[in-house]
């Protein structure tokens, strides 16, 4: 039966990488938004 665990493991690895990358992108976009607000804020002051 352990080959079923391997199959499950493969899906966990595959989808995990995709979701991990998406999360990383999301975090990076938050950081960029903060930089943008600061830069825009700077010029307006």
């Amino acid at each position, binding site marked *: 039966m352990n080959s079923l665990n391997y199959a499950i493991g493969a899906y966990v690895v595959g989808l995990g*990488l995709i979701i991990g990358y998406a999360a990383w992108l999301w975090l990076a976009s938050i950081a960029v938004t903060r930089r943008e607000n600061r830069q825009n804020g700077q010029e307006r002051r």
Partner: protein
Amino acid sequence: MKQMNSIFVSIYWLATLALLAIGVVMVFAYTPTEVTMGPVQKIFYLHLPIAICTFFSCLTVFVASVGYLWQRKAMWDHLAHAAAQVAVIYAAIVLLTGMIWGRAAWGAWWQWTPRLTFSLVLWLLYVVYLVIRPSIESSQRRAMICAVYGVVAFLDVPLVYLSVRLMPDIHPSSIELEPAMKSTLIFWFIPVIMVTVGLIAASFKLAKRQAACNITRELPLPKSKTARPLRPTITSGNRGVV
């Protein structure tokens, strides 16, 4: 407009997640277990679509690199960078799932079989693309080098595929798919393609915004008429040297 856009994006990702979930349920509940290989064959429904989409992202890197070489616009470089990131992630998935399959089916994590070697070399090719980027400071130079690399690396892929087939293929395994399996496989293509396009688009937008932030926009120089610039001290040595 911004508001509309973000709604669309969240709907898009929710739909993709839903489809992925359905796909997983189909694989483990609906599709019959393959008779000769056993449950490990279920990896195939994820492995094949991701492999196809890896090729699609490598193609995007190639097209974007050619675009940059032709038009020298930073936008192409951002697209190439985004697609390369997705290509590396997907190649890693193909490689890892392939190794897991090999482990389950033939007991060893790694064998120099054509398929495994191909995904390893493909992954290496595009990891190098990402690795060399930070070590080049000027953004224009970096875009240029990456564009040339992006072109040659993609043209390398068929060569790798051909040369890898020279290797002895110990386990030629081509399994017959029952109709239920076929439908699951086809179903799986939809979410995987949506994820690919979504990730490339998101990464592309992010790269563009990051580049926009990086452009050093000092505050505009004071108009020379109004603000008196510092008088340079004109000594005999440096005659009015700036």
